[in-house]
C-alpha cells in the first residue's frame, strides 16, 4: 500500500536528523529507588529548556509520569533515561512514579 511507503520518508529523515540533535541542554539528575524519588524536589530555572536525567536504581521498572508536564517515560531497573522539559513558566509541577503512585511522588520547582 502506497501509504506505508511514504510514511517511511519522514521516519527515515527523522532517523538521520536525530544523531545531529543537540545534547547541550543543562542536565538535572533524579533517582528512583525502592519506589521513591530522590530528591523529591528538583529546582530548575524557569523559561529554559532542560533535560531531566532519571536513573532507576530498582528494583523493577518504573514509569516517570507527570500530567502537569505532559511527560511519560518507562525506565527499566539499572537504566538511565532523559526527558526534555520546558521552557516552563515559574511554578510547581508534580510528577509521580506510576508503578508506585503512593510513594513515588515529587515536584519540579521552576524559578
Amino acid at each position, binding site marked *: 500500500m502506497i501509504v506505508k511507503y511514504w510514511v517511511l520518508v519522514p521516519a527515515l529523515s527523522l532517523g538521520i536528523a536525530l544523531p545531529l540533535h543537540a545534547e547541550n541542554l543543562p542536565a538535572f539528575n533524579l533517582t528512583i529507588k525502592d519506589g521513591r524519588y530522590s530528591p523529591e524536589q528538583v529546582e530548575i530555572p524557569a523559561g529554559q529548556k532542560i533535560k531531566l536525567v532519571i536513573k532507576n536504581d*530498582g528494583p*523493577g521498572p518504573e*514509569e516517570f509520569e507527570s*500530567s502537569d508536564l505532559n511527560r511519560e517515560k518507562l525506565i527499566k531497573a539499572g537504566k538511565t533515561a532523559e*526527558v*526534555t522539559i520546558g521552557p516552563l513558566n515559574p511554578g510547581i509541577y508534580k510528577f509521580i512514579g506510576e*508503578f508506585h503512585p503512593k510513594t513515588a511522588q515529587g515536584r519540579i520547582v521552576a524559578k
Partner: protein
Amino acid sequence: MLATAIIVFREVLEAALIIGIVLAATQGLARRVSWVSMGIMAGVAGAGLVAWFADAISSALAGVGQEVFNAGIMLFAVLMLGWHNVWMKRHGREMAQQMCDMGQAVKLGNRSMYMLAVVIGLAVLREGSEVVLFLYGIAVAQQDSPGLMLSGGVLGLLSGAMMGLLMYRGLVRISSRYLFTVTTWMITLLAAGMAAQAAGFLTQADLLPPLVQSMWDTSGIVAQNSVFGRVLQTLIGYADHPSGMQVLFYVATLAGIAVLMRLYGSAPSSKVQPVNAIET
C-alpha cells in the same frame, strides 16, 4: 493487590474502549470478531516483545527511541483510523444496500477490518507492554505474593474489559440509522486524541517545540489521571494541560479526516441517474 488491580485496570481501559468502539462501528462486517481477536492476540504477543526490548528501544535514537516508537505507533493508528472512516463513507452505503456483489463487499469489509485490527493490536501492544513491565516489577520487588499479584492483575483486566463491553453495549443501542454517524465521529475523535498524544511524545523527545506550554489547566475540574479523566482521554483526547503543539495536532487531525471524508467519501455509484420513474 488492589493497587495492582487499579494500575492494570487503567492501562487496559484504553485498549478496551477502543475495542468496544471498533466492534460497534463494524456491525455487519463479516467475521469481525475473528479480526478483532487476531488484533488482540497480535497485540499481546507484541506487548511481550516490546516489554522485553524496552531498554533497547529506549536508548535507541540518541535516547529518545521510546518516544519516537510511541509517537510512531500512535500516528500509524491515526492513519488507519482516518483511512477506515474514508473507506466506510465511500463504500459503507454500497455494502449496506448490496449494490456491489458479495465478493466485493467481503473484500472491502476485509480491508477495513484489517486496518482496524491493526489499530487494536497497536493499542493492546502499547498498553500491554506497560502492564507486562509493571507486573514484572512487582514480581521482582516481591511486594505482593504471586497469588495476590496475579489476582490483582486479573481483576484489573476483567474490570477494564467490562468497560469496553459497556461501551459496545451502549453504542449498539443507538438506532442503526445514527450508529454509523456516531461511530464515525467516535473514531475521528479517537484519532485526534492519539495524534495529540503522539505530539506529546515528540515534544518530550525535543523533536517538536511545545509552542505554548499549557493551553489550559482543567486539572481542577477533571484530572487526567483519574478514571474518568482517562476515559475522556481515550474517547475524545482530553488532556488537562495540553501543549500548543498537542492542540495543533488534534485540530489538524479532526480537520484532515473531515476534509478527506468530504473529498473521497462519496460513493462512486452516486453518479448513477435515476432511469425509471417507477419505484419498486
